[in-house]
């Protein structure tokens, strides 16, 4: 295994533990917004898509990368906006 892979595995495992620890005692009303918010974060795949379509030429890799950019951006933008709409509604409900 290369040094870069070892470093990447360390990052992966430590970030996983952080992910386990960061979620606890979430009230049931927040389950869907939390799912939706973390879903938006998983749209981070857009970074991979940007790197994949970075070459200034036309080939299948670049085209697939560009499709991936569109899909992942829908995930990111839609995800954060939908989460905000859900949370906004809770606030209105609570105040009315």
């Amino acid at each position, binding site marked *: *295994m290369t040094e870069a892979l070892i470093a*990447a595995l360390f990052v*992966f495992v430590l*970030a*996983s533990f952080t*992910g386990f620890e*960061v*979620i*606890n005692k*979430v009230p049931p*009303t*927040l*389950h*869907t*917004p*939390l*799912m*939706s*918010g*973390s879903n*938006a*974060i*998983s*749209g*981070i*795949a*857009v*970074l*991979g898509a*940007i*790197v*994949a*379509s*970075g070459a*200034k030429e036309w*080939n*299948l*890799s*670049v085209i*697939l990368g*560009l*499709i*991936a*950019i*569109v*899909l*992942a*951006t*829908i*995930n*990111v*933008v*839609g*995800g*954060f906006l*939908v*989460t*905000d709409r*859900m949370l906004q509604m809770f*606030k209105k409900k609570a105040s009315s």
Partner: protein
Amino acid sequence: MTDFLPTGIQLTYLVAASLFILGLKKLGSPATARQGNVVAAVGMLLAIAATLLDQHVLNFEMILLGLAIGSVLGAIAAYKVQMTDMPQMVGLLNGLGGAASALVAVAEFWRLLQHGEAISIDANISMLLDVLIGGVTFTGSMVAFAKLQGIMSGAPITFTLQQPINVLLLGSYVVGSAFLIVAPHNLPIFLAIVTVSLVLGVMFVIPIGGGDMPVVISLLNSFSGLAAAAAGFVVMNNMLIIAGALVGASGIILTEIMCKAMNRSLVSVLFGAFGTGGSAS
């Protein structure tokens, strides 16, 4: 792809990763949830901006066009959707994220194949995992969306030989992967792996009832995080690995919490249709 990214990009990634952790933490409590969502969104914006500065990224016009199209479509979808349709909306968005991760692996495979470059075992395993997890997330989320939206019946779909077929599919994925690890430059086998992964996603979700779909979407959300992390290993990008691992791990915990809130176990939700106990509840 393995050369070290410039310091500025790395430091921006570090800030973005911290914002993601902070945002997730805040999303878990009612008073700070909305703020947490904004914090995570800022993290995402920083991460995307930093990646555009990568020296390998030259194709600016097309990339910005892609980002613009995605943003507009995402915003329209987010504002048009009915409040009652939120779970399936999340499922649909999640599926797109999974598809994007899988496409990154396919694009990278094609690039390596075209340039006749050697494909290392590390990169190969990362691509195979990315295709599997991303593919299952994509088709699984689409089935979950269809069930909740009423496009297909919410009832569990079971048929004879379903279990043997699933085992056969998994087996062919394993055999195909082993073959690719020995002889990486084989496009037909790679495409077969992609197809098997997509079919597995459908097979995974159809036997689960519509009422359990929110739990399934939460689990698939965790998968899409893992798919993004796998894509991170494919292009060797720490930011993808961190954010993917965060979502993967927190998604599993959230799925478990949701199951507990419904007085179900994850096993009974996933395999209830096969008569392993949970079908009565």
